[in-house]
């Protein structure tokens, strides 16, 4: 293989460019929607964006869901789903609070690390059940959703951890800012950037996509499917664990019901952000933008004068709209690719 003939350079073709652009346009569209929501709300009430509190809330509120949604996106890309993230987040949040009470003097980084590891462990339990028992993830994680929440209720009872139980320095992280940007938002962004880089540029990341695209082919390729599925769930658990820490730092109080219902927000955010529920397509960036859009809409709708009970309907329309749009785009792309073949 030493002397190879001159290589023919194959130029990037029109259809490929078109498809690449379409993928970017999908995420860009959600970003535009987000900007429109912010502009609309700011027009109604300028303090939505221009007051110190408004600016802070805009960045801070979505940070927690962004983490959970990024983890969820990774799991969905492997053609699985993690419905237990809300419970994992709640349990990790409660653990964080208990650690401050039960082990006084434990350094804050150690507490954070323990909570993240705990979340990762819960995710690992999910992953093992899915990967080894070969039961659909939806069923397994629906089960652990209740199981983890049950453990949380058993542990916490009707008590709650309050701000006074926790060190001031920890709560300061929740309210702290750097150049007017909340610290939690910065941390979330950095983690997001790392996850996005990993998903795009490493073997592990690409194998998640491959597994979601065609699990049977992944097996034939000799990919370590079991290990990858396990790691996807562990990652999702770890991110939910970190989100639990964020939750405590942000709200300063945690009961046995922290994070209830967040799993559906996370799935919704991923779907709105263009992650295909059947796996193989989407990015964590998309899921994160979806999460920000979801949280911002929740805050903007009251300002726009839309009654409370319509807000959930709007979210529903958004999710269904996103799925219909994706399906339509997929069908059109397939048609286009097949027709391109016919012509050649």
């Amino acid at each position, binding site marked *: 293989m030493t002397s*190879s*003939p*001159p*290589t*023919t*350079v*194959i130029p*990037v*073709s029109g*259809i*490929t460019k078109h*498809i*690449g652009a379409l993928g970017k346009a999908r995420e860009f569209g959600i970003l535009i929607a987000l900007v429109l929501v912010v502009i609309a709300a700011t027009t109604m009430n300028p303090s939505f964006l221009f007051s110190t509190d408004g600016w802070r809330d805009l960045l801070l509120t979505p940070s927690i869901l962004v983490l959970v949604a990024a983890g969820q996106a990774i799991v969905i890309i492997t053609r699985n789903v993690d419905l237990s993230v809300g419970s994992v987040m709640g349990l990790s949040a409660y653990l964080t609070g208990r650690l401050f009470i039960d082990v006084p003097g434990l350094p804050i980084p150690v507490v954070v690390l323990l909570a993240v590891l705990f979340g990762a462990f819960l995710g690992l339990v999910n992953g093992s059940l899915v990967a080894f028992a070969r039961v659909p993830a939806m069923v397994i994680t629906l089960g652990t959703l209740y199981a983890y929440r049950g453990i949380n209720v058993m542990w916490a009872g009707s008590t709650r951890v309050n701000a006074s139980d926790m060190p001031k320095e920890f709560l300061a992280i929740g309210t702290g800012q750097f150049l007017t940007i909340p610290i939690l938002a910065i941390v979330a962004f950095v983690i997001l950037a790392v996850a996005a880089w990993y998903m795009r*540029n*490493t*073997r*592990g990341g*690409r*194998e998640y*996509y*491959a597994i*979601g*695209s*065609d699990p*049977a*082919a*992944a*097996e*034939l*390729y*000799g*990919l*370590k499917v079991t290990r990858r599925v396990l790691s996807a769930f562990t990652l999702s658990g770890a991110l939910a664990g970190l989100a639990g820490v964020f939750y405590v730092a942000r709200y300063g109080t945690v009961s046995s019901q922290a994070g209830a219902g967040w799993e559906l927000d996370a799935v919704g955010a991923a779907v709105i952000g263009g992650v295909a529920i059947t796996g*193989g*397509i989407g990015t964590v960036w998309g899921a994160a933008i979806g999460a920000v859009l979801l949280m911002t809409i929740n805050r903007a709708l009251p300002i726009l004068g839309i009654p409370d009970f319509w807000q959930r309907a709007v979210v529903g329309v958004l999710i269904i709209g996103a799925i219909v749009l994706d399906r339509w785009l997929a069908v059109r*792309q*397939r*048609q286009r*690719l*097949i*027709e*391109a*073949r*016919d012509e050649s």
Partner: protein
Amino acid sequence: MPSTDAPVVLELSEVVKSFGAVVALRSASLRLQAGSIHALIGENGAGKSTLVKIVAGLYRRDAGEFRLDGEDVDFTSTAESKAAGVAVIYQEPTLFPDLSVTENIFMGRQLTGRFGRIDRKAMRHEVERLFTRLGVVIDPDRPAEGLSIADQQVIEIAKAVSLDAKVLIMDEPTAALSGVEAERLFAIARSLRDEGRGLIFISHRFDEVFALCDTVTVMRDGAYIATTPIAETTPGELVRQMVGREVTELFPKQETVVGEPLLEVEGLTSPGVFHDISFTVRSGEIVGLAGLVGAGRSEVARAVFGVDQYREGTVTLKGRRIRRGRPTEAMRAGLALVPEDRRKQGLVIDSGVGRNITMAIRRELSRFGLITTGLENRAARVWASRLEVKSYALDTVAATLSGGNQQKVVLAKWLATKPDVLIVDEPTRGIDVGTKSEVHRLLSELAGQGMGILMISSELPEVLGMADRVLVMREGRITAEIDRADATSENVMFAATHASEQHS
């Protein structure tokens, strides 16, 4: 032609594999030399695929020897066999539809730089180099979705070459290829052979085996029969080894009276799938629909029956228009479709024989909207015995029947609706020889009773032996219509693989 002292890259001897009570391989042997293209032939069910899967690491053998490059090996996963230098190209390539061509070629072993970062530029360049070497131009950045099967196979081969595989196994690679595409594949195969790799080529087409290969191994009933240099054998000799006896192709074709047109299809078009399909099926006539796998034959059948949509064209049955996308309407009008995949589409596989047979007549069967097992069985028994379905009872689960008996159940289900026109898609695929001729006799009998039959088949002898008229499809178009008297394997095959128009 490999010299006799070329090193042996792959050697299997007396390999045994069974699945439960079913013995797939009794004693399989194979000896592949470097720089050789070795044909592996045998009837369906002879154990070729099982043998390939053992070499690929999908199955583990129960007994026997398996040596690669002279060393004993025992693969427990596809990753292991791949690492040892074995590449398998399956008939239906398995690619990731959402990922680009480049990613498909390198998945699992991407070129990486610092921090494990994938080097996309280097990968793309490598793909260009591979494609140049193979003499093909496929856009490396496009998703694998929508590629033709021929292009998908080229990608599989590119993968094997980039792996520097010593042993390349191609499992019926030409089944879905046109003549030009097959020639391109052969040119690639020869160049790989000249580089000193060992290739195993599984095919049912003798002309290809004789044109491409230098050695041939015949298998029958899970056992090794013979290995011969290609120059020292003949097709007749090989067929004899494959079936273990002289074959006299006997098709129980009855003479029938061809009557008035029953099914008329006009200008059926579905972009990217099939174009301008027109044909007529008359009463008492068996019309064969021949062509390569992937030519769009099954898709036409599904569209005619109303399962799939189409953009233009009309379907008329006995003068009555059948609207598109309405299988129920087609059924009521007297059309029946025995699909290609009987396990998934022909049967409710976990249901009993009786329930399956009465599946299409439930409306007529019900009394006040209720159906009892008794009603079901009474109706099913008639058809089960007419078609000689071999099962102990009507509540035997369909999944446990043999392929031949399953096919009879599907046929019984549709015959119970008393159709005027029966469309059968690959009626004898994966069925043993005895049942095959039973199915043929039945089809012939039905035509004799005035039914119109459209038979899709990839087996040329079947088409030539059974059909009154042969339609040939190639890449979504009907390229020829040949009368029974004029039909030969040559002119049918020619129409199936060449673009020229030869309507007669």
